Structure formats: structure tokens, C-alpha cells
């Protein structure tokens, strides 16, 4: 009965979660929210994580009714992500591991999302669409690796959404993407914008610049409302994501799709993906905001799987890395 604790802080969410044999015992989280029109920067984000780490850790232990001695392994996000936030979070995890004298496992953030998604939804071998503020990848598992079939060639889709929210000065509470989603529900006029799918890959910086340049003019002219712009942006970028996912599915002959990552909370994206799936007689799996959004339990769960299969991160390798590709990790915990 492995009990794992996981520390996640690669972006603006600080999460610490405890998992016991695939059961989430606790999963508290704090989000660093900046004022409207502003994005979060590494230094302040790291500061936020430092300020909240101990409180959240205590919450995690209390809610799970776990004591330090009960923990078998301490897991933390090794990467990818923003440097300072990653490090500030890992410092807490490593210190705690030393204090409690527990082994440590550095977990790939993307793999944390995937394994938690598989656990919660029961998806067996899905094509995974991983979409967040920092990542956009279409992943399929083959021969012990989570292989990247397609990805963004520039910015992540969540980044595109977040930055557009700043143009419209939308609130970042609870998240800019959530507020764009609510606005989009009230929009209905479609603005034609660049659609950039290149084979299995996608590109968002062109769309973002297009929108950044034109938004004010379109709003001032009265031709489009902010709701229409949010609607148009979503319809276009989500169509791009669904298309690349479908291509990967066709290539791998897969009949399951799993959406993970913060942008995966978006119900319109889920709806569109669902329509594509039903046209192909495939099944869609998605999680809710507890697990879509960065959280500690996903790190704990992935780390736990790794630990059970003999993985250990030696102390001199307990570093963090901003670039950590999903396909770099050997997935020793899967039999297929």
C-alpha cells in the first residue's frame, strides 16, 4: 500500500496532494492570480508558492489524515515549466523528504496529467490531447514511451487564450480561460481568422497577433462584441486541436481520446471533441477542474506508479528543468 505525496508548482498553481493506491486522499491547491491585463511572472509566482507551501502542505496532511511517517515516497514536478516556480516548489518537497527520510521521485508534469487522466476516467490507451497554458501536445503511447505526435510549433493554446484575455482586460479570477469561455457562450458572430494546422502540428502565434492587432478596431467599429471575439477565437483554435487529435487517432487507429491540462476544462472544447468522437465511434474521456488544472495528486499518482516499478531519483538528480519532453521518460510502469 504505497502512499505518495506530490508537489506541483510549475506554473501559477501550487498543489500538494496525497494518493494511496490510486485513491486521492487530499488535493488542496492555491492559484496565483494577477490583476486583469497582467500575466504572471516567474519571480512573483515563486514568491507566491513559497508563501503558501507550508499551509497547503498542512492542509494536505490533515485532510488525508496522514502523518509524515505514513508517506512512502515524496514526488515533485521536475519539469517542464517556469524555472523559479519549479525550483521553489521542489525545494519544499526535497526538504520534507530529507526531514522525513523518504525517497524522492522527480515527475514529468505532462505525464502527471496523463496518468491522472487515465486513472480518473479509466481510459485504457487513449490518444491524449494535453492542453494548458504552457503545453499543447497530441500524445499516443507506444512501446514504453508517450510519443508526441503533434504539438504547437510556437505558443501553447492556453497561452494564446490567456494573452487574448489580457487584450480584453478580462479578470484572471478564477482563470482567464474560464472567463473567455463564459464570454464565448454569449457570442455568435464568427470572425474569420488564420487557421494554422500544419500536418500534425498547430501554431497559435499568428492567430494571437491577428487578434491583438485587430481586436480594438473591431470592437470600436461595433462590428463585433467582445463575446463574439471570444466565441470566434475558441471556435477556431479548438477546431485546430480537434483536427490534429483526429489525425493522430486515424494514424494510430485509436478509438479513445483523453483531454488533460487546464484548457481541458473548457466545455466547448469537450463538446467539439465529443462530436468528432461520435462521428468516428470513438469515446471521449475528460476530467473536471479538480484534475484538469495542475494539481499535486497527479504528481503523487504518477510518482507512485514509477516508485512501485523501482524508479528512484538519486539526490544529485533532484533538479528541475524548464524543458522536459514527454517522450524522454521511459514508461516502465505500463505493460503494454
Amino acid at each position, binding site marked *: 500500500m504505497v502512499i505518495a505525496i506530490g508537489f506541483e508548482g510549475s506554473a501559477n498553481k501550487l498543489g500538494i496532494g496525497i494518493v494511496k493506491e490510486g485513491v486521492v486522499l487530499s488535493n488542496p491547491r492555491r492559484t496565483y492570480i494577477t490583476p486583469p491585463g497582467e500575466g504572471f511572472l516567474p519571480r512573483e509566482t515563486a514568491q507566491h508558492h513559497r508563501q503558501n507551501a507550508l499551509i497547503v502542505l498542512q492542509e494536505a496532511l490533515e485532510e488525508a489524515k496522514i502523518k509524515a511517517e505514513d508517506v512512502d515516497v515524496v514526488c515533485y514536478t521536475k519539469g*517542464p515549466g517556469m524555472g523559479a516556480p519549479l525550483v521553489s516548489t521542489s525545494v519544499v518537497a526535497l526538504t520534507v523528504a530529507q526531514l522525513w527520510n523518504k525517497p524522492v521521485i522527480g515527475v514529468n508534469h505532462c505525464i502527471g496529467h496523463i496518468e491522472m487522466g487515465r486513472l480518473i476516467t479509466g481510459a485504457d490507451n487513449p490518444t491524449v490531447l494535453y492542453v494548458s497554458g504552457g503545453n499543447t501536445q497530441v500524445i499516443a503511447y507506444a512501446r514504453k514511451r508517450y510519443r508526441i505526435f503533434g504539438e504547437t510549433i510556437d505558443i501553447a493554446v492556453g497561452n494564446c487564450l490567456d494573452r487574448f484575455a489580457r487584450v480584453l482586460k478580462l479578470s484572471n479570477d478564477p482563470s482567464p480561460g474560464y472567463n473567455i469561455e463564459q464570454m464565448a457562450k454569449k457570442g455568435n458572430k464568427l470572425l474569420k481568422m488564420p487557421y494554422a494546422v500544419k500536418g500534425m502540428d498547430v501554431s497559435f502565434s499568428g492567430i494571437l497577433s491577428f487578434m491583438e492587432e485587430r481586436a480594438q478596431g473591431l470592437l470600436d467599429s461595433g462590428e463585433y462584441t467582445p463575446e463574439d471575439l471570444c466565441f470566434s477565437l475558441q471556435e477556431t483554435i479548438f477546431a485546430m486541436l480537434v483536427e490534429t487529435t483526429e489525425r493522430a487517432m486515424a494514424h494510430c487507429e485509436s478509438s479513445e481520446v483523453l483531454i488533460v491540462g487546464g484548457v481541458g476544462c473548457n466545455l466547448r472544447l469537450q463538446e467539439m471533441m465529443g462530436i468528432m468522437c461520435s462521428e468516428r465511434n470513438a469515446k471521449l474521456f475528460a476530467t473536471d477542474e479538480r484534475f484538469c488544472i495542475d494539481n499535486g495528486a497527479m504528481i503523487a499518482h504518477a510518482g507512485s506508479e514509477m516508485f512501485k516499478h523501482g524508479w528512484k531519483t538519486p539526490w544529485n538528480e533532484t533538479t528541475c528543468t524548464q524543458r522536459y519532453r514527454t517522450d524522454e521518460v521511459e514508461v516502465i510502469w505500463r505493460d503494454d
Partner: protein
Amino acid sequence: MSSELEGFEMMKQGAEGRLFRGAYLGKPTVVKERFKKMYRHPDLDEHLTKDRIKAEARAIVRSKAAGVRTPCLYHVDFNQRRLYMEDIVGSVTVKKFIKDSLIGCSDEEAMVKIKPVAYEIGSIIGRLHAHHIIHGDLTTSNILYSLSESSKIVLTLIDFGLSHIDNSAEDKGVDLYVLERALLSTHSNADKMFPIILQAYKKANSQESKTILAKFEEVRARGRKRTMVG
């Protein structure tokens, strides 16, 4: 308004659409019909599909001017989202040709047969790129092999569904990268074929090949390592 393709037989179905085979205007014809994607906003679906059909047809026509053999186009139907083109009868994919060449032969023996084909592949892609046509999906399934009456190797390039016109060296480098990866994942002797392809490519696109191959190496090395930004 879309009518069923009477008298046509479905050959293949992919994510983008379906391929049918039959007779049209008295000729053996392949029809590529693109699906209407219900998850897309109807306006988006319509203009995206139209743009893609245009891009595909344009690339097929321009490739001929570049001296690359492509199917003859018979009709373009935006309303029913179809492209009607020549069915190249009596050909096999290069993929099949290569695989068949290896049957009952040693690698060296097979390479004797494959070498001239690999060379010709490099030539045609070089010509394509010299005219700024990016195929977008170079695989051995998208090149057809046949022999002329005088036993000359004839290669026909098909499936321009992801093509576009661009003079950027980066896009051309990526085109080559896609081909390399496709070869590596399909053919055991890819490592012997690709250098020959590049050799012919350099000759066919002498003006730009240096820059393009440098980009190709860049894309290869990059292997998509990118910084994650919050």
C-alpha cells in the same frame, strides 16, 4: 446538397475524407471527397474545406509546370467538396515497391533496384521545391511507381491534401524532415535510401539546396525542443 457517388467504389477512408474509384467522363477516375466536420462552425468548415481543395488542386497543377508528374485533374466541385482526378492505373506505391524488392533478396540486391527510385524521388522533390511547392505529406505511400514503355522509371506524386506554396527554406526543410521520418518508420533500409534522395535533391534544386539542407538539419536537431512559457 450532396448526391451519392453512383457507380463509384470506396477505396479508402481517412480523417479528412474518402477516396472513391470509378468512371467519370469516360475515364478511370479517383474522387477525393472531403467530410463536412460537424464539430466545426459551419462557416469555418465551408471556407476551410474550400481553401484546402483549392490548395490541393493548385499544387497538383503547379507541380506539372515544375516538371513533376501528378494526376490529371478533371473536375473540382466545391459544393459537394470533391476533387475528380485521373486514376493512375497500373502503378504501385513506392512503399509497396520497396517492400516487394526486399522479398527473397539480400539488402544489397534490393538496393540495386531501389537506388534509381530513391534518386528519382530526390529529383522530383528538388524540382518541386525549386518551384516553391511544399507537398506537406511526403511518404512512400504518396509516390506511385510505374515503368514507361521504354522501361524508364516513372514516379507520380499524389495526395497534395496538406500542400501549400511557400518560398521559405524552413518549410522545405520540414518537408524533407517529414519524408525522412516517414521512411525511418516504414522501411528498414531507410538509412541507405535517404542519402541518395538528398544527393539527387541537391542536383535538382542546386540554387537553394544548401540553405534548405541547413534548415533541415536544424529541424532535425531541434526535434521539437521548445521552452515552455507560462
